[in-house]
């Protein structure tokens, strides 16, 4: 059955292939742990069912409002949901919800959140009518027009570094670009946010990783410091007075006009990162299965942010250095996130040592079957399960189901697939569609090895 589903769909339609409801993943008896399931998939072998991830990274997360809605849907205890990533307002998925959704991975995150507040001393916060938990040093004000402003390191005397307009559900970074004096531009100014991890940082990572490693779930470690030139991080929302090149457009232009400067930033950042990784690994060993390396986006909705030649000149050497260190010294797999149309970069990603690519934005002109055929034996596709710009937020449950089943058909064969949506589940997504997505994965699993 498992080898012929595609043919069946082509000749008989989806309904004929998946005729009866299948018991949800989490209710089916299995002797395979989530961690083994994930590892099997990462080794390009077929696991007992497709491993499923939401919440193990900042790019496979769920908006806090949807986490609350899912908890309601599954009848789980009510209460304020923790916002583990306050920039995109991603909500923590606790063990009870993880079990209800049948998820297989959890994440280890750095101590400091995007706006510089440590993930500690949680307090309640009224998020436009929804009670949530935020870090104690996450401090906001509301402007006269109703926008929410957030402050770096919770310092209300500093200029705000994030803004959530009325009508939005996410923060956007406020660019604080000092005037650029070309003569005085110093790469050190763009390195202020990078430095040796403190004992506090390391202690947090060690405790989180040990707990995650003992949980039985697959573990993704996000340690920070290895995202090279990610425009989501360039404005440095955690710094009180960022210096250097901090405007996103200016940074993009600098990739053409100030390459020597950027090389010097990346070189030093890479040195710092490798020293930090050595310390992290000495503490946590192989309690994580893969490492989130970088979220720099190289693709747009229809094209790319740069040529392959530019990628290879500017980014490739540093990715290769980080991934090589990881593969030489650990058992971790290397995870690369890049939105958009990135097929042109995939050979270079592989050559640079990436094992995993996410979010597999098929809607950006990439044919999933072609991706699987060309790269499926060399790259794990972590994502690509359903479109979050169109199908999931605006489609019918039937459309969600059909898209998910087709994607599972294409990507699951031979392993090398971790089901997740194409990026985070956004605010406003109907919870029924999220459940339809999960049901469809379960439905596929029910007949995959039947």
């Amino acid at each position: 059955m498992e080898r012929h589903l595609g043919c069946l769909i082509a000749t008989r339609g989806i309904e004929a292939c998946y005729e009866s409801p299948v018991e949800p993943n989490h209710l089916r008896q299995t002797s395979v742990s989530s961690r083994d399931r994930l590892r099997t998939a990462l080794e390009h072998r077929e696991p007992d069912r497709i491993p499923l991830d939401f919440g193990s990274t900042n790019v496979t997360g769920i908006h806090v409002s949807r986490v609350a809605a899912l908890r309601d849907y599954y009848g789980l205890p009510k209460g304020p949901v923790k916002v583990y990533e306050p920039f995109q307002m991603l909500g923590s998925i606790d063990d009870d919800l993880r079990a209800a959704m049948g998820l297989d991975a959890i994440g280890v995150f750095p101590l400091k959140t995007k706006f510089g507040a440590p993930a500690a001393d949680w307090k309640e916060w009224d998020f436009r009518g929804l009670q949530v938990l935020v870090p104690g040093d996450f401090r906001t004000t509301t402007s006269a027009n109703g926008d929410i402003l957030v402050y770096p390191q919770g310092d209300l005397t500093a200029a705000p570094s994030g803004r959530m307009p009325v009508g939005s559900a996410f923060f956007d970074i406020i660019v604080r670009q000092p005037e650029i004096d070309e003569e005085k531009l110093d790469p050190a100014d763009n390195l202020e946010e990078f430095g040796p991890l403190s004992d506090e940082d390391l202690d947090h990572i060690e405790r989180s990783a040990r707990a995650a490693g003992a949980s039985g779930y697959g573990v993704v470690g996000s340690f920070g410091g290895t995202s090279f030139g990610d425009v989501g991080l360039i404005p440095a929302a955690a710094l009180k007075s960022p210096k250097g090149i901090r405007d996103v457009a200016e940074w993009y232009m600098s990739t053409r006009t100030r390459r020597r400067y950027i090389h010097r930033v990346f070189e030093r950042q890479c040195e710092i990162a490798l020293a930090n990784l050595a310390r992290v690994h000495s503490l946590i060993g192989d309690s994580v299965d893969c490492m989130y390396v970088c979220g720099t986006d190289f693709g747009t909705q229809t094209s790319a942010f740069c040529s392959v030649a530019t990628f290879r000149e500017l980014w490739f050497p540093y990715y290769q250095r980080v991934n090589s260190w990881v593969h030489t010294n650990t058992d971790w797999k290397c995870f690369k996130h890049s939105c958009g149309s990135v097929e042109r970069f995939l050979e270079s990603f592989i050559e640079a040592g990436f094992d995993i690519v996410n979010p597999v934005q098929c809607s950006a002109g990439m044919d999933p079957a072609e991706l699987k055929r060309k790269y499926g034996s060399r790259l794990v596709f972590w994502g690509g399960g359903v479109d979050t710009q169109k199908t999931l937020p605006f489609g019918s449950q039937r459309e969600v189901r059909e898209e998910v089943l087709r994607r599972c058909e294409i990507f699951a064969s031979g392993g090398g697939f971790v089901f997740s949506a194409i990026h985070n589940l956004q605010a406003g997504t109907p919870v029924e569609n999220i459940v339809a997505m999960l049901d469809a994965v379960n439905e596929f699993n029910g007949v995959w090895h039947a």
Partner: protein
Amino acid sequence: MHDLEQLKEALIVGDWKNAAAATQAALADGVAPLTIVTGHLMPAMDEVGRRFECEEYFVPEMLLSARAMKASMEILRPLLASSGAQPVGRVVIGTVKGDVHDIGKNLVAAMLEGGGFEVIDLGADVAPELFIEAVTERGANLVALSALLTVTMGWMKTTIDAFQTAGLRQEVKIMVGGAPVTQQYADAIGADGFSDSAGSAVALARKLVTA
């Protein structure tokens, strides 16, 4: 003529300092501002758009050319206004309410200006009534709406509906674009046009204002 070729080249390679200098030099040689725009600036930005469409250029190169074009237009704009020269069209552009993303919108605005349009850029997080106010005050015949987020793209429909309610929908053409926006969505909300890139936005805008 040498200055004008230099201007064109400066725009294409994205050298704002040379673009400004060449513009000043051409004016000093007695070249009319409108001639500089239509004969040199517009063809240069068309070439930039062409290179973007065929992926010789990417976002960084587009940003550099847009900055060079702006440097030239900063000099030319007041002269064009005082000469009474008519633009190809007058467009009010902005990112819709609730959405503060503006890089894509800025690129489209620059390409439209380079394409001979007078551009009234309202910035980001723009409420429907502000679009209406700008169209009324400036006599614009085109509105360009941008959105990056699925949670904010609904404001495109709200804005179009607001033009309808204000009795101005027949007075303007409305085009939309942004990462989650599709032709299907544009059709569903009653927009007149959709563009998925800054380069093709100019061609669409020209088509809409001459329709």
